[in-house]
């Protein structure tokens, strides 16, 4: 049975179902319950955005509020994952990763390799990404490329509630460390989501719109902006295919290349900063693998090489827009 569910609710449900199914799943983070030690309501927050609200009542002390020490508790989640638990640690904003990056990129990501295949680290790190909420330079970043660069991490960034639920359940059951990116501007977005538990495999991109003239490859919030651009372009008779990557690592190159072989045109869209980005990563791989299929220069549409500005007028210009995407598509269509 499917009902309309927001991404927020889908995350809550995925965590709930996995905790019910597997007693080794624990969830931790700052104020993910809330009100600990305080005189008022227990479960007062359910996380900064209320995503985990209600899970404390069902799962008790497997829902753990942490002190404000990301290195310690993210590291503890990672350590516990090598000792028989399946922790899901919340890093409130991905922007905070600078205080605990070592535990993620040098420890979790490298254990299996450094130890010659003798360790497994089934930890999930859930974290909010993205701009659009006037939260400024230290609460609005994507940083997806930094994690995607690191071998040993799996990197997930869903664009809708259906994928969110299936990918989060997969992330929890997966035996490798997973970084699970939730775009804060999408939390409220609802689609049909089955009540039952289900998984979506990693490394399978989703073609959210079929088209013949150009391939737009993107992920996260940009999927929706790309759809908007495609609708604008459709009026001009330009028919875009949109590939929603869903997982950035592993990457579904087959689907991307197949699409480009049909359309001959590639537009890579990334809300992250441009240098060494997901956009450049995919653009370069396609050029190397499927150069002959390209009828025109590939285009990249990304944020500028600047921090995220506070003022709404600037932030709106910072985030890649449907207009900028449409313009890039038109450029590829015109030039061939």
């Amino acid at each position, binding site marked *: 049975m499917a009902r309309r569910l927001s991404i927020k609710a889908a995350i809550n449900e995925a965590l709930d179902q996995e905790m019910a199914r597997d007693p080794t799943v624990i969830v931790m983070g700052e104020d993910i319950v809330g009100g600990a030690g305080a005189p*008022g309501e227990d479960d007062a927050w359910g996380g900064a955005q209320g995503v985990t609200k209600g899970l404390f009542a069902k799962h008790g002390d497997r829902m753990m509020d942490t002190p404000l020490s990301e290195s310690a508790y993210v590291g503890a989640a990672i350590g516990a994952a090598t000792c028989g638990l399946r922790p899901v640690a919340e890093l409130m904003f991905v922007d905070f990763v600078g205080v605990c990056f070592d535990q993620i990129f040098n420890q979790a990501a490298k254990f299996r390799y450094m130890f010659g295949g003798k360790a497994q680290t089934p930890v999930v790190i859930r974290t909010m990404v993205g701009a659009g909420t006037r939260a*400024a330079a230290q609460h609005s970043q994507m940083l997806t490329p930094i994690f995607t660069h690191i071998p040993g991490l799996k990197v997930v960034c869903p664009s809708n509630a259906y994928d969110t639920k299936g990918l989060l359940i997969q992330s929890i059951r997966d035996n490798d460390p997973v970084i699970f990116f939730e775009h804060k501007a999408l939390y409220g977005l609802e689609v049909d989501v089955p009540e039952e538990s289900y998984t979506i495999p990693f490394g399978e991109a989703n073609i959210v719109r079929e088209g013949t003239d150009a391939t737009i490859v993107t992920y996260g919030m940009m999927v929706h902006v790309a759809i908007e651009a495609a609708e604008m372009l459709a009026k001009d008779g330009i028919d875009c295919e949109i590939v929603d990557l869903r997982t950035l690592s592993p990457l579904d190159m087959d689907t991307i290349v197949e699409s480009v072989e049909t359309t001959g045109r590639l537009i890579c869209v990334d809300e992250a900063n441009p240098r060494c980005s997901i956009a450049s990563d995919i653009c370069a791989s396609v050029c190397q693998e499927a150069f002959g299929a390209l009828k025109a220069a590939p285009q990249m549409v990304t944020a500028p090489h600047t921090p995220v500005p506070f003022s709404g007028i600037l932030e709106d210009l910072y985030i890649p827009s449907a207009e900028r995407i449409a313009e890039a598509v038109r450029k590829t269509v015109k030039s061939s």
Partner: protein
Amino acid sequence: MSDNPFPLSKADLLEAYRKMKTIREFEERIHIEFSRGDIPGFVHLYAGEEAAAAGIMMHLDDRDRIASTHRGHGHCIAKGVDVKDMMAEIYGKANGACRGKGGSMHIADLSKGMMGANGILGAGSPLACGAALAAQKLGHGGIGLSFTGDGASNQGTFLESLNLAAVWNLPMIFVIENNGYAESTAREWGVAVDSYVDRAAGFGLPGITVDGTDFFAVYEAAGEIIKRAREGGGPALLECKMIRFYGHFEGDAQTYRGKGETENNRANHDCLKHFCARVTEAGVLTGAELKVVDDKIATLIDEAVTEAIAAPLPTAADLTTDVYVSY
């Protein structure tokens, strides 16, 4: 009028009051404007905690550098950042303190020794140690000072800084703003030790705990350790126990609070009321004198909001400037 029993002159008392009251009015007004939906982003109010900022900042001048937190308005105002620039910044305007690029969580004014509010817990302490190091090397007699919340006192950056300041004997003051909560979580839940003086001792730093709602207690304790730091006596920690009148951020429903907690705090633990009572009861300042300050502040805040609303927004060209000094 009786003799002045306070360690501050009348002029200084008025200045301290001006700082505190400006912060209070600034924050109360932002609370209103935010609820109207006019102010974007995350806003963390300092109302209730004014005595700490003012009691400390009365000892500092422009040589001295402070590193602030996400809850930075009070530190900015007490350190002398222009209130209208701040308001314009919070509204995201081109004439804001950061030209609209920073917002509430990133207000800075290095010319006033304000190194920045900070969106990252604990991040200010290493930076302020750097200010203290610069003061030490340049020999200008300034100090570095960082504010850290009770919750943020568990960040490694803060803890490492305690040791760094100790081994380098930096002119550095660590202020713990202990308001009992980190977001919705009680301090006792996240910190296993009762006193930050013990924590400081574990790094070889002297520490002192004061009632942060008592301006005079803060003023006295801060004065002593700041003087020592300035004279080469090394770093110290000051814990201010204080009260946050509003929620963690604007929009916080605060269901974690006890019944009547806020009402009681406002009625019985208001640092401003406490200050006013002390100075008027001692007969050093009159209600009328305070009222003059109040009126000026009311006008200032009114103007700040009106002007901020009317101020121009940044333009598209501003998006890509100011990333580097040279390109």
